[in-house]
């Protein structure tokens, strides 16, 4: 029984077929799992392991290395405020402290209504608009406390949903064309990987 919904599962299989080795699809598949669940559930990681020919432990070990993957539930909007050098010089730390007060949570926490998670970000490469604020990896360019407050109330009222999809949805543009491997070849590769995985599991004492 697939944990990933049929449509997501199909996209996952298409992504795997783009790479010479299934494991390379690890990061895009984890993004996809987050798109479905909002964070990485154990069930999704197990399924990604199957798709990439790895173990659930390897998936977790890889996912935990990267800032954008969350192993615990996060809010619908993950708000990041950069405090690195260019933003520091423009009051990034002060804006982050303001965000803590406005949202009523410390960095790393989620509001009780499950709407916002606050993070302190490293440089987001938008240094001509400091301090840099992102929501779900989208640059919102709210550089003052007032603008930040307006953004928060807009999001609370359900605004800007076109621009800022729920957390986890990273790339909404699908790959439409390309030298996608023939389906039989993909099925063959998947069977091979699953046999190898089985053999590895059996070889363990």
């Amino acid at each position: 029984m697939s944990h990933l919904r049929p449509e997501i599962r199909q996209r996952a299989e298409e992504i795997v077929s783009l790479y010479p080795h299934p494991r390379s699809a690890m990061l895009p598949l984890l993004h996809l799992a987050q798109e479905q669940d909002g964070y990485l559930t154990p069930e999704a990681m197990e399924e990604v392991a199957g798709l990439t020919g790895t173990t659930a432990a390897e998936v977790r070990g890889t996912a935990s290395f990267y800032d954008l993957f969350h192993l615990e539930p996060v809010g619908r909007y993950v708000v990041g405020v950069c405090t690195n050098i260019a933003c520091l010089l423009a009051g990034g730390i002060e804006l982050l402290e303001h965000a803590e007060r406005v949202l009523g949570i410390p960095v790393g926490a989620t509001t009780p209504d499950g709407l916002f998670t606050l993070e302190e970000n490293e440089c987001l490469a938008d240094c001509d608009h400091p301090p840099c604020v992102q929501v779900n990896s989208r640059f919102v360019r709210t550089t003052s406390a007032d603008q930040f407050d307006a953004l928060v109330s807009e999001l609370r009222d359900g605004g800007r949903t076109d621009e800022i999809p729920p957390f986890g949805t990273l790339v909404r543009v699908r790959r439409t064309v390309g030298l996608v491997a023939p389906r039989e070849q993909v099925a063959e590769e998947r069977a091979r990987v699953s046999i190898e995985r089985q053999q590895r599991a059996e070889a363990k004492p």
Partner: protein
Amino acid sequence: MAKLDAPKIVTARIGIEGSHTLATYLEHGGYESLRKALAMTPEAVWSEVDDASLLGRGGAGFPAGRKWSMLRKNPVSYLVVNGDESEPATFKDHLLLENDPHQLVEGVVIAAYSLQVSQAFIYIRGEMALALERVQSAVNDAYASGALGQDIFGSGFSLDVVVHPGAGAYICGDETGLLESLEGKRGFPRIKPPFFPAVMGLYGQPTVVNNIETLSNMPWIIANGGKAFAALGQGRSTGTRLFALAGHVNRPGVYELEMVHNTFRDIIFDPALGAGIRDGRALKAFIPGGVSSPWFGIEMLDVPLGQDEVGERGSMLGSGSIVAMDETTCAVRAVWRITKFFSRESCGQCTPCREGSGWLERILWRLENGGGRHEDIDLLLDVCDNISPGLVWPPQQTTICPLGPSIPASISSAISMFKDEFYAHVTNQGCPHG
């Protein structure tokens, strides 16, 4: 006086409405260079790039032509494009990815043709969702118009390009860390030797890893010739380069400038560029090439923006990001934040970097917040010396990748320039700037 008459090589279309779309790109001569390149031999394309003497724009400044020539001996290979721009205060690739993705795609196909590679990956930082979407759209459109896929423009050459999202890790900007990440693993930089992915890269195969800006130069170089590119700039620093100016300037932004013919003073103070320091304040110091580079004081303002010109004076142009800090900036606080960044982003493989960065951050934190001790300044330098022995430039390495040796750069240069300020943090029991 700033010299601003050089052609815009990679930013010509920036600012044009719809610059990210295929229609706009085609209106401005898009994919003509690719057609021209495909009519040439792969060797002739390489020779133009070699003539251009284009230095890689990622940070290390390795000549692109030479990198490619290493691969020409080996048959099986991949082209990987490094779009994991995360060196603090660097935001040039972000601009190119969002506003001119087709220029990059065209550059990728030209490079792949020259290298005779049939598979390329564009690795883009996960924090850049819009860039990921725009590049994916550009790739889709390129396939649909025959500029990608099988038998490109009827030339017989085929290329598949996969846009790959990163997931938030500075270390994946290191080329071997990036390759590990692309293989679906933690972004742990690989142990050297082999030193170059051209020997052993993606899946153990010969691989070329190029920066976004480097490849974005290709369409212009093919259209105008490598010699025209090399005619710009001076010495080893040819062509133009993107400089990302941030910090306390009136007009922060990305500026494309001819190499060497402009100075730090030009970019920070020229009215058409940085337009001087905010609120009429005085400049205190500046970071010349990303936070991995040693700081420069105001006596270095007239140093030209060139690879060797900056290198000879004990720092680097690095990723091309310049951060201006005005007289109100607390040097300890700025260095603390930079060090905190390295501490957070250290992958943890090597002890000097993993432990050292955390120690340094804590010492700087207590200096800034009133717990500093007189001996802390020497202690900082001592820990730095353990990470990068001798604190020389270019730095000595005790770690697998250059992240570790980058940590001491800001600390030791700031202490040498502002030693009194560091001691004032001890005697004042905290930051005298308040």
